[in-house]
């Protein structure tokens, strides 16, 4: 077969979950040697569609053909054998196994009945080289960064003679450099190996760069499907959310008053070093740096989940004792973590319970939970950041990836803290809801909350913050006010550590001019 030939067809696919018609007649055609992007809001049905394609879910209606023949995969194994491989939205690394065994999971090279370890490690080396990863196949997967683990999952698809590789939000935890590598890899696969790729992402500039063909789905139905060249990004957004989006970032000026949070010389040996800053009421401070620079670790220390060696955290004039998150919450610090599955959510309980978890004390009278108030509080955020679920009683584990993330965000918004720390608040969230979250943050600041936003997206930082602090390798390399003059490049070079700029440091401890070292 040759490039552009259609070999996989899905017609009118229907998938029903209790209370949800997740797919309601979706059709899609996949051609060899092309990148096919799948776009849609959180809960539109993207992940469900690909799970139907890979045999995780059985379809409830419609036809699924490969090379003209109808297929009914009963397991992922059958789909893999038929050439359909997938990198799922949720990481599925076995953290205690080594890299090679993770790459060849379920598919170890054999010599007769015996595992061929020599080939296993040799082939793994090859794949790692292809992925431009400078690690040994003997490394234990759990020791790798999240980005590297994601790359391993992508490598996994390469070990399987796939004809189609599906990637569900592969870049949500990759650094910029890793994303570049991934794009290079995708281009090689498509151009040299004539593979087909289905690419799902909420980062629309990525979609616009990579895709040959774009399909938009909403509420489990096809909205539009055409060549990338016929799309503009604005048009894409409009089709996704059903209305034009004028302004993604809606930052309204807030009154910035007294210092709320003061961090002095915070140090954790080998992780971050001598971090000082202040956040005032009504102020939104962004923390920017490369993945692994230590931003999240600083926040974890402030919140008390990690210990620190020296320094102090002062909240509203009161010095906090470190290492006690319960106390931190009580004192009014809210922390919306980056890793939602591990740290932010209980997957087997309802949206309602998850959302009101940290707020429970305020919602109860003498130890008895006020169910009505609880329900009202949850309902409010279900609507305002449009969490897509049949009811607040739905189990969080049944939500789409983006909607799970929204529940975490809602939980902390609900708590109404004095200082709110949000770590990558919009990872995996569609554009429409992103703008909702930004406007909520802006409102909260206007009401006098002090807010810290940790992000790996410069645009996000520039769009929602009053000032940005850059962190490079655990050290503070800059503190700048967000002004129209501030450039993206300047923030980036501070985050790389090649420049420093402390022009916005308050109290003038060490006001320095912009200086160049690189």
């Amino acid at each position: 077969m040759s490039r552009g030939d259609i070999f996989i067809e899905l017609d009118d696919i229907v998938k029903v979950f209790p209370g949800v018609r997740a797919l309601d007649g979706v059709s899609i055609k996949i051609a060899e040697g092309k990148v096919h992007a799948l776009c849609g809001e959180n809960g539109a049905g993207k992940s469900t569609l690909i799970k139907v394609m890979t045999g995780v879910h059985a379809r409830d209606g419609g036809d699924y053909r490969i090379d003209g023949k109808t297929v009914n995969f009963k397991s992922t194994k059958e789909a893999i054998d038929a050439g359909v491989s997938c990198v799922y939205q949720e990481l599925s690394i076995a953290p205690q196994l080594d890299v090679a065994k993770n790459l060849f999971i379920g598919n170890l090279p054999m010599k007769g009945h015996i595992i061929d370890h020599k080939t296993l490690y040799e082939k793994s080396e090859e794949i790692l080289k292809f992925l431009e990863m400078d690690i040994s196949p003997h490394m234990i997967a759990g020791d790798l960064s999240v980005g590297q683990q994601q790359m391993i999952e992508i490598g996994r698809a390469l070990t399987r003679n796939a004809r189609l590789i599906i990637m569900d939000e592969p870049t949500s935890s990759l650094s910029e450099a890793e994303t570049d590598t991934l794009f290079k890899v995708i281009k090689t696969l498509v151009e040299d190996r004539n593979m087909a790729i289905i690419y799902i992402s909420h980062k629309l500039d990525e979609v616009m760069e990579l895709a040959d063909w774009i399909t938009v789905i909403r509420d489990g139905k096809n909205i539009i499907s055409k060549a990338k060249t016929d799309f503009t990004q604005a048009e894409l957004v409009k089709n996704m959310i059903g209305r034009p989006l004028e302004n993604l970032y809606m930052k309204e000026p807030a009154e910035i008053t007294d210092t709320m949070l003061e961090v002095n010389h915070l140090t954790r040996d080998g992780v971050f070093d001598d971090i000082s800053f202040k956040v005032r009421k009504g102020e939104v401070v962004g923390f920017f740096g490369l993945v692994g620079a230590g931003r999240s670790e600083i926040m974890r220390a402030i919140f008390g989940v990690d210990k620190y060696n020296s320094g102090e955290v002062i909240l509203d004039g009161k010095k906090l004792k470190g290492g006690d998150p319960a106390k931190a919450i009580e004192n009014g610090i809210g922390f919306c973590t980056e890793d939602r599955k591990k740290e932010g959510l209980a997957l087997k309980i309802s949206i309602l319970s998850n959302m009101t978890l940290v707020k429970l004390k305020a919602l109860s009278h003498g130890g008895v939970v006020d169910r009505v108030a609880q329900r009202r509080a949850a309902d409010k955020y279900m609507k305002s950041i449009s969490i897509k679920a049949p009811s607040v009683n739905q189990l969080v584990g049944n939500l789409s990836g983006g909607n799970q993330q929204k529940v975490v965000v809602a939980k902390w918004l609900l708590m109404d803290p004095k200082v709110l720390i949000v770590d990558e608040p919009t990872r995996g969230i569609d554009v429409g809801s992103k703008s909702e979250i930004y406007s909520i943050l802006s409102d909260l600041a206007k009401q006098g909350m002090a807010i810290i936003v940790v992000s790996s997206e410069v645009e996000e930082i520039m769009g929602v913050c009053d000032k940005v602090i850059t962190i490079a390798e655990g050290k503070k390399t800059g503190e700048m006010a967000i002004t129209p003059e501030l450039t993206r490049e300047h923030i980036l070079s501070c985050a790389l550590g090649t420049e420093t700029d402390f022009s916005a440091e308050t109290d003038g401890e060490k006001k320095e001019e912009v200086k160049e070292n690189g």
Partner: protein
Amino acid sequence: MEEKGVKKEAAAAENAVDLKKIQRVRFLKDNNSILILVALLFVAFIGVDGFTGSWYNVALYSAEYGICCLGLALVMICGNIDLSVGYNAAFCGVMFVITFNHIYNSTGNSALGIIVGLIVALITGGVLGAFNGVIITKVGVSPLIATIATNYIYEGLVMNFAKTSFAPVNKDAITPIAKYQIFGLRWLTPMVIIFLLFVLGTYLWMHYTRYGNRLHIVGDNPEAAEYAGISVSKTAFTTFVLCGIMAGMTGFMMVAFSGAAIYTQGTTLGTFPISCVIIGGVKMTGGKGTAVHVLLGVLIMRTVSTMMSTMFWSTNRVNLVTGLLLIAVLIADRFTSTKSADE
């Protein structure tokens, strides 16, 4: 662009150093049972009078109970637990004795009695293991609760079938074979060799076969296994059956050791396998450990008990020390894991 490249290289280099260090710490942590064993043996040989004369017991007693520890390890590597190993083994011992006596009484052929008896013991163990497996992987009962319950059931079976708390074989044909000293070495008996063969076999199975390799994946991340086309419930079921068969083998070994099926051995065995497996370095949470770890764990536990019986300590004190050792190992594990990679 250029900046990014340079940065990437620097980060990669730093990463590499870091990972090397992490790997070294990890290796030590994963294999700390070697250190424990060496230290214990050192203390025993230097500090305990008479240990030079009694250490061969470490080998003999290890062989007696060791095989079911391997079986339990398989279950635990898959992320489950089996608390019914003790009475499963005891019951298989009873079944061996009944079969042997029956055949010996009717034919007078003790070799035939041993062979058929062994087969019956293994099948019995496998069936009881499969029973655990069905309740846990098909019905979905938690392995902890399920096997506490089946342990009671198997205890009941022992009582019902044995009808006595001490059921001897009618002709003591196996103990002389089992305890035969190869090359005149007191520690090298057929039982020890059988145990070592089981260790080797289990190790090779897990290292070299596709099926054996699944255990780690399933225990480590069941979801990932399922997505990779590996059936979690089938794999877990297999481990319960294998654990049962190995418990059956242990039942046979216990009879071979003492010439009788003894009711209380179900209780004596009790939590011993779990202690061995954990001390050896198999994780409670699954995904980690090899047959060699089990071997080390069994040797450690047996060194401790041999040391203490050489010093004529009471069972109570032995239990106390064993418990403390177990806790020390678990604390050391916590300590090193928070120190290493901040997982």
